[in-house]
């Protein structure tokens, strides 16, 4: 039977296959380097789901870098507004709440020229903006509300972000809840530090007194009760280095899906 087995490879075929394989591996390496360079690789790219996460994040960064989340008419605002289940609020929060949030502060530092701490009154002294956008939860429910606040880009401009900044990490007063977004989302015109909702104060159930609205991502990226922000060029030093609390709890860092 052995004389019947065909010669699988001719020399030419071997050489061309070899060159093709080398070119393939090489271009994959170059693609990976370029993807890293252009911010197309999410911090939770390791592990078995890294391929899908990277493809999702990279393709959406290429397609949606400047696109605006859909805005709705005032008549489409959900009535009553939906307050999702919130974590048990700690004493630090309750003390500030007792004082009418007069002492609530948002500190911003990291890769900035002028680290600063803002009171709610100071944030409200910036020209206020509003957007009527949808909050979508990873569970499947959604609601539409008018969100009032100051675009994060204005605050980042005020603290003078260094050019090498790549991410903004933000922390809730609830120590288990912190997230991060890349600069395209941080500088996006619909990313708001939100203090009002539907023409009124932002209710505690919806994240009041201060919530970061990231309108092109699922609800869990819009962290409630924001007290601290840090601008960075590397997420490795935060928590387990996966970018935010979400991947540490088994959820994707990028939630634009």
């Amino acid at each position: 039977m052995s004389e019947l087995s065909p010669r699988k490879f001719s020399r030419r075929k071997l050489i061309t296959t070899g060159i093709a394989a080398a070119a393939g591996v090489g271009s994959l390496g170059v693609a990976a380097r370029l993807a890293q360079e252009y911010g197309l690789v999410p911090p939770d790219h390791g592990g078995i789901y890294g391929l899908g996460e990277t493809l999702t994040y990279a393709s959406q960064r290429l397609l949606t870098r400047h696109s605006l989340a859909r805005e709705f008419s005032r008549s489409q605002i959900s009535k009553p507004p939906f307050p999702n289940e919130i974590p048990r609020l700690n004493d630090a929060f309750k003390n500030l709440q007792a004082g009418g949030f007069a002492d609530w502060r948002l500190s911003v530092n990291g890769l900035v020229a002028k680290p600063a701490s803002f009171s709610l009154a100071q944030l409200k002294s910036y020209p206020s903006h509003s957007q009527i956008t949808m909050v979508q939860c990873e569970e499947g429910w959604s609601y539409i509300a008018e969100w009032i606040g100051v675009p994060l880009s204005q605050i980042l401009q005020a603290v003078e972000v260094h050019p090498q900044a790549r991410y903004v990490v933000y922390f809730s007063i609830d120590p288990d809840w912190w997230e991060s977004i890349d600069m395209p989302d941080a500088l996006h015109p619909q990313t708001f530090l939100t203090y009002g909702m539907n023409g009124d104060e932002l209710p505690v159930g919806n994240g009041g007194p201060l919530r970061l609205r990231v309108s092109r991502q699922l609800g869990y990226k819009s962290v409630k009760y924001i007290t601290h922000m840090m601008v960075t060029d590397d997420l490795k030093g935060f928590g387990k280095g996966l970018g935010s609390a979400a991947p540490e709890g088994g959820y994707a860092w990028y939630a634009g899906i």
Partner: protein
Amino acid sequence: METSNSSSGTTPCWIRTTPVTILLAFSRGVRNMRAKWYHSRVSDSACVPGAATAVPTAAVPTTTVPSRHSVLVRVTHWITTLCFLALLVSGAEIVISHPRFYWGETGNDLTPTLFKLPIPASRNFVPSGYGYVLPDQNGWSRYLHFQSAWVVVFTGLLYVVVGLMNGHLRKNLFPGGPDLSWRALSTSIASHLRFERPSEAEAWSYNVLQRLSYLFVIFVLFPFVIWTGLAMSPAFVSAFPATVNVLGGQQSARTLHFFVSLSLVLFLLVHVAMVWLAGFWNRMRAMITGRVAKPVERI
């Protein structure tokens, strides 16, 4: 051990389904294909008189049986199968976290539903009517769902593009003109309704109902399930708002996604039932190794 492998007729069914034996069968199929290729080369080359006699066809009958399914069809079929099962399990887990469905843009625990599934939820905030909460599996389910979606999209594209180029879709899936006459269609429908076992010749080609349902799955259900999935992505619809607007809103997209998935599950059940009816092991072997049990002359 080695002899029991070669005589598969005496091997019990359950042993044949182990991954190792599937791999063995697959490699055997590849080997046969190579031998077949070589044989066709040798018999073509009339300038090598010794070669033709050196390959007595009767001595190795199985190697001359043409492959029922091409490597492309077999590999993409099984990758799609794996991805679909992963999408189904993870999709079910995601639905369990909020088993309520709506129509329009928004929907939540405070709004009326289009319908709700009579199952408990994996989140305690959902008014499911049950006194307990199922374990929450959303994290890995969502990771797995999107990863499988990417793999199945690339697999589907490969299948369609290569299938168009090499004529697989034209020859094996697009029904011929006469097949689409009412008479031919009603004959085929009637024989299906009588649960007739297909003839042996049918093991070599798809019947017209089969062709139409495969085409419907490939060119209608799969694209629609991808579309309704993308229409739920807040970032994707920010760039392409029409994808969700024409569906009637984000919750409509979610509800449609659910129904298209149910249609695909229905297809899967009928597909497996038909394979069972036609001879499960023979069809499985054809889709894994490319071979069918009895060599049949092509018509």
